[in-house]
């Protein structure tokens, strides 16, 4: 085949199903994960619809429990954890470091099929849908009559896929960097993905084994978590959060990586404090393993343990806060274009600041006692996970859409969607901070009437949010055929993926480039182009 033929040139089911091209695998992950984003979002709309009324309405409490479990589990395990690493990471890590593919292309395809088989197993469980919450706390999950065993096995497969992908990325970043691509010339997205991969490889085995223990508990009544047999129900929570806190950073680090690419490009300024941002990704990856107990301050864990975990939690806030200052400083004296990728990046910063600052109340022991397990917590993690990660993802999607598809998005529709989503998001989730301060517990199918009006407000917000998301996805789909043909480098960015055609040829680079400079030389006297 010709050297310049696009990676999309071959058609037909087999050319996708058996592909070992990291770009095609990335696209397959992109479609799969976003499908679950839409389904999970739809379930959230149903939940909000029920909460329009404080009493019994629409469907039973049991159905409500099933729906919030599905919403949480899908959004976390099938969307937000794999969304950026497996899709955009797969597509762009080799392109950004000047490689032809990931280190192990076959393993990469195998990981995708592991992911899909995990999903299929989870879908089988819908025969007896689980109502344990995505946190699977024992003994409730151990004694539950629903298909917890099936789901655990499905998530085990999804976790395997995640470990293999992480491993693949680590080896790729170590061994396949183009000549001259030193560690300090790596785009920050790569640093973010590196930190992410380390966490995935180290923490996912723990949740895998925890799910196996849960299965053993259910099938053979072993009693790891059963006090009647000398087990400890809190042990499960320790295992669970030992994975699930670091995983919060699997979700956020790649998004921070995207922001660190988009902000300099659209402000035409070098990233402020490159090394600080790069090392903070590693620092966060490391400290994130030591803070899991902040989910358990009121669980019955000792006071001393609470004090230690609270301290370490504030410790991890330092590198996170520092990044915010770095991004804002990058804007200073820039020449800022507010194209859609930049709008989403700025929205990320705006919402993530709120998410981060409200985290202070949850990290402080005294105030956590009051707001823990209330809607305050729900609001906080939606501000960090949706306001953070998902906005970062949206930024990345708008930024890289021309590269992936070879078409430009409709900028006007992108901005309509942006308005709707930003307003809808805040109307939905901000009232939840107040609901939580007023004491409304989470996972409530019915609630006291005094919480009614703020719940109505949140539900109305969810409709705006939904309309915005629909507009955005309509734009994604419509532009596939009707968008303007994208040039190789529409944003005049300096990273390597923009130096090849859009969409990239199958082997990425005709000749592997030699790198002579870092990718943030915007505004440098010697000229605004790569390699002087």
């Amino acid at each position, binding site marked *: 085949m010709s050297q310049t033929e696009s990676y999309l040139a071959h058609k037909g089911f087999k050319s996708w199903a058996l592909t070992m091209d990291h770009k095609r695998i990335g696209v397959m992950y992109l479609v799969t994960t976003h499908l679950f984003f839409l389904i999970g979002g739809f379930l959230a709309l149903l939940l909000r619809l029920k909460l329009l009324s404080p009493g019994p309405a629409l469907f039973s409490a049991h159905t409500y429990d099933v729906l919030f479990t599905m919403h949480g589990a899908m959004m976390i395990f099938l969307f937000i954890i794999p969304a950026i690493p497996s899709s955009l990471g797969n597509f762009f890590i080799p392109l950004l470091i000047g490689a032809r593919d990931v280190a192990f292309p076959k393993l990469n395809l195998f990981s995708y099929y592991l992911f899909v088989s995990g999903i299929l197993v989870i879908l089988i469980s819908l025969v007896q849908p689980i109502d344990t919450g995505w946190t699977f706390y024992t003994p409730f999950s151990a004694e539950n009559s629903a298909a917890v065993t099936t789901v655990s096995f499905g998530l085990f497969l999804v976790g395997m896929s995640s470990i293999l992908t992480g491993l693949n990325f680590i080896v790729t970043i170590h061994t396949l960097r183009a000549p001259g691509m030193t560690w300090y010339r790596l785009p920050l997205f790569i640093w973010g993905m590196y930190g992410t991969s380390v966490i995935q490889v180290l923490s996912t085995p723990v949740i895998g084994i925890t799910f196996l223990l849960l299965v053993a508990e259910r099938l053979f009544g072993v009693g790891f978590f059963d*006090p009647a047999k000398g087990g400890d129900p809190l042990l499960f929570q320790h295992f669970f959060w030992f994975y699930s806190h670091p995983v919060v950073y699997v979700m956020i680090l790649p998004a921070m990586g995207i922001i660190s690419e988009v902000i300099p490009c659209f402000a*035409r300024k070098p990233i402020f404090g490159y090394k600080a941002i790069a090392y903070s990704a590693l620092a966060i990856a490391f400290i994130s393993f030591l803070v899991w107990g902040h989910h358990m301050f009121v669980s019955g864990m000792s006071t001393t343990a609470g004090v230690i975990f609270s301290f370490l939690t*504030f410790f991890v806030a330092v590198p996170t806060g520092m990044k915010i200052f770095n991004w804002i400083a990058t804007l200073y004296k820039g020449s800022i274009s507010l194209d859609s990728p930049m709008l989403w990046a700025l929205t990320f910063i705006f919402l993530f600041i709120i998410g981060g600052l409200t985290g202070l109340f949850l990290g402080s022991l005294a105030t956590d*006692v*009051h707001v823990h397990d209330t809607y305050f917590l729900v609001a906080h993690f939606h501000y960090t996970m949706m306001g953070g990660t998902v906005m970062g993802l949206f930024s990345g999607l708008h930024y890289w859409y021309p590269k992936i598809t070879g078409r430009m998005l409709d900028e006007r529709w992108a901005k309509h969607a942006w308005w709707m989503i930003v307003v809808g998001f805040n109307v939905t989730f901000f009232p939840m901070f107040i609901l939580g301060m007023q004491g409304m517990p989470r996972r409530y199918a019915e609630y006291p009437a005094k919480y009614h009006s703020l719940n109505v407000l949140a539900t109305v917000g969810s409709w705006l949010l939904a309309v915005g998301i629909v507009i955005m996805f309509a734009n994604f789909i419509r532009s596939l055929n009707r968008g303007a043909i994208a040039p190789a480098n529409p944003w005049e960015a300096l990273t390597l993926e923009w130096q090849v055609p859009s969409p990239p040829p199958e082997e990425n680079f005709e000749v592997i480039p030699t790198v002579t400079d870092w990718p943030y030389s915007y505004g440098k006297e010697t000229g605004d182009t790569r390699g002087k």
Partner: protein
Amino acid sequence: MPDLTALQGTEASLASHDVDAVFIFILVIAAFFFVLTQGLLIYFAVRYRRKKGEPPAKTPYITGKQWLEVVWIVLPSLLLVGIFAYGVIIFVKMRTPIPGATDVQVTASQFQWSFKYPDGRTYSNELHLAVGKPVKLIMTSRDVIHGLFIPDYRQKQDVLPGRYTYLWLLPKRIGTFDIYCSQYCGTGHSLMRATLTVMGQNDYLAWEQSEKQKQQSAGASPKAKGKALFDSSGCGGCHSIDGSAKVGPTLKGVFGSTVTLADGKQVKADEEYLRESITEPNEQVVKGFQPIMPTFKSTLKDDDIAAIIAYIKTLK
């Protein structure tokens, strides 16, 4: 000092005021950083904005400023240490035993709270306290993990099976307050609510006196014993006695009635049906309900079950 009671509910216990003080402390710091960062973000985005289609202006090549980076690492770190320390001080205070506290045994079960006083009186979903009198809640669960949460007290503690956890309360205000279950525990989780009634000290003594008398005059009749067991076993968490719908079928008028089961069969609710429903609850599930009731085979003795049935018979 600003007051958070409009947002968080009344400061009804010793802990409430302390927790709100920490809350306000963090709020002030958070507000400062919120205004600083969002202000700069929006100001820069507007001030240095380039019009659509315009070529980028010349921008300065600034890659970092070490002193600035040191400032924004050190200053927030110091404030974080402050927040951490203040939180610890109040948390430790909340968990320090209050001398002279009365013990109240709390048993959580799906989906009901039972409160037992030192003299054996047990109440379902009702906790009565005297203002100014400290109480130690000694809590355990019969089944899964629950969480006892009193928003007006800013107090919360998970309740676990197989061990005790504690809460120390010092009521400061007369009134009634909500008690919620804060840890998701199943279908009836959101209805697992109880009421905390705080009375003046004299009113409390009078209430206690009359309750004790009531208990004595009820004596040891099976019906009274059945009612006590009904409350302490948590039956009322799922089964109403007034005909209203809960997670399980109401028990009002159930004795002698004809019940339609999930498989469409119709059975007469006699003594044997009620006994089996207590010992093997998921054998005959009433139509329209989930098979979620735990068995009481090992917790209730034969004459306990007989007493409960005697009590159910009176629910006409």
